[in-house]
């Protein structure tokens, strides 16, 4: 028997487990070399597209969010 498990916004959810301050906030996880956003919390989804390059995020949005590597 094989079980397949998927989690919501996996890397973003992982960061929140050990850092509960991040709950409810728009957070995103960056790929290798801080390139692109590869995981977004639900609060970040309306602000930033999946896979968006970090440098392309507009400054007014960049101020409101937390990006983690």
């Amino acid at each position, binding site marked *: 028997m094989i079980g397949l498990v998927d989690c919501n916004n996996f890397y973003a959810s992982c960061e929140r487990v*050990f850092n*509960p*301050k*991040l*709950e*409810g906030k728009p957070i995103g996880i960056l790929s290798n070399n801080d390139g692109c956003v590869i995981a977004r919390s639900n609060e970040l989804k309306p602000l930033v597209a999946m896979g968006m390059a970090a440098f392309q995020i507009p400054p007014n949005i960049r101020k409101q969010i937390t990006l983690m590597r």
Partner: protein
Amino acid sequence: MHPSRCIVLGLVDASVINHLPLVDTPVRAGFPSPADDYLETKLDLTEHLVKHPSATYYIKVMGDSMVDHSIFNDDLLIVDRSLTPQIGDVVIAAVDGELTCKCLGLIDGQHHLLSGNALYPPIALVGKEVHIWGVVIHTIHSLRGLRNS
């Protein structure tokens, strides 16, 4: 800063067995048993204390809000996240975005987080952003302190 602030130090590693000799006869402060030379049984602390290693973490606790539960400043807690918290359990809770160590209790039928120190009032769980992170199963208190051994 919350009383009894907690820092997660890491996940339990049950992959390496470190056997230390176990003294089978209970150690009383008195006459030692001549049979103590024949130590056969070995004990690995992680194996002995931790039932769910993939869900158990070491957490350092700071502050004195749980002294009544024998948890003191700088103690090391062993916390199992797979257990269902019950009334009376010492738990790690995320309160206002910070991990803190408290006792889960009932006051007038409502769940509260109780301290083990009369100086700190209970925290009501109703209408608050509180999440029970894990159940504290053991506390390690160093008598000599880790730097002065």
